[in-house]
């Protein structure tokens, strides 16, 4: 037997001996733990309480999900209803519905809430029967005459500042199908002022003021 093997076996034996000592020491240490009665009453009471909380939480979650699902599927909560002024005014079947319902009147016409519109090949949105101040109405701005003015709700509106049109505008039925049009929304903001928003086309709203007289291209 070589010296290395002898030393290795001695070291291994020493380690095993130490581990055995540790084993007996840990057992002796564990024996010092005072044995107390099983806290079964406390465990059961707390366990029942936590189970009740779990059941209650589950029920609350189900109720919340049900409520949320109900709200999301409600007709007035659909995305089209949330942008009620624009879409309702776009709908040719009920052009005045959004203007007359309290919900539509209460809708904020903030430009940020308006969705980008596309030209409808079926034709421009029907003009509103009655214009409510602060409400956005879908409007396709016909640019045949350029951009000096627009006609909305029977009135002519001049631009407060010149407008630089974005590139790529086209007619209702596609490129070169007719005079270009810019789909957007008109909001009457005061007795003689209005605003034209074209989300997705114009970065800023176009400020308008009521023209003293009607105009035409020619």
């Amino acid at each position, binding site marked *: 037997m070589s010296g290395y093997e002898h030393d290795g076996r001695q070291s291994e034996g020493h380690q095993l001996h130490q581990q055995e000592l540790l*084993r*007996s020491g*840990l057992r*002796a240490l*564990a024996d010092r*733990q005072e044995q107390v009665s*099983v806290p079964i009453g406390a465990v*059961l009471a707390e366990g029942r309480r*936590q189970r009740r909380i779990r059941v209650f939480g589950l029920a609350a979650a189900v109720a919340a999900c049900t409520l949320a699902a109900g709200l999301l599927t409600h007709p007035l909560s659909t995305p089209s209803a949330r942008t009620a002024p624009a879409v309702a005014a776009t709908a040719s079947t009920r052009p005045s519905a959004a203007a007359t319902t309290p919900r539509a009147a209460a809708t904020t016409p903030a430009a940020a809430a308006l969705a980008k519109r596309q030209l409808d090949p079926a034709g421009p949105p029907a003009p509103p029967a009655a214009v409510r101040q602060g409400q956005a109405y879908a409007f396709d701005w016909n640019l045949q005459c350029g951009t000096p003015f627009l006609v909305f709700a029977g009135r002519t509106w001049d631009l407060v500042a010149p407008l630089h049109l974005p590139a790529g505008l086209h007619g209702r039925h596609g490129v070169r199908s007719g005079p270009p049009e810019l789909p957007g929304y008109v909001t009457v903001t005061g007795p003689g002022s209005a605003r034209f928003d074209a989300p997705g086309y114009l970065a800023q709203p176009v400020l308008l003021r009521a023209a003293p007289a009607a105009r035409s291209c020619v």
Partner: protein
Amino acid sequence: MRDSPSDREAEFISFAAHVHPAMLRTARLLTGDPDTAQDLAQAALLRIYLSWGRSNAWDNPSAYARKTLVNVHATWRRRFWHREVPHEDPGEPLRPDDPAQGWSDLVDLERALAALPAAQRTVLVLRFYEDLSVAEVAQLLGCSEGTVKSRTSRGLERMRGQVELSYGAGRRG
């Protein structure tokens, strides 16, 4: 057919009475404190109660209780790590005149255990008190066998530096 809730509770009560003493002893070694050991054992029993009856695949309820105890202890460590300060000297006064044989040796051992990082302490308790193999400890702790081996080695090394593992040698003659 599932047992009724009252049957399940009766089973649990019987189970708790069976495993609680062993859980308490292991908890004492894991925590180093008798009062905390009682809290730990109770918290582990509570967790077992909350999942009691969900699984019929408990081959070894005692092993499950041990695993739950270790897991709860690990959770406490993670949650209250800032409260745990491994210390060289717990401040407990020595009582050399204690009549119990080897009492001061055990105090040294307890101090050395308390001075270990909790992960090493857990591994040593599982390996040398619960007599689990490296593979069993690795499975229980959810770590690799290499981790268990290295923690064991480091734990033993640190303990050797703090306590002479000579207790019991005299008693064994």
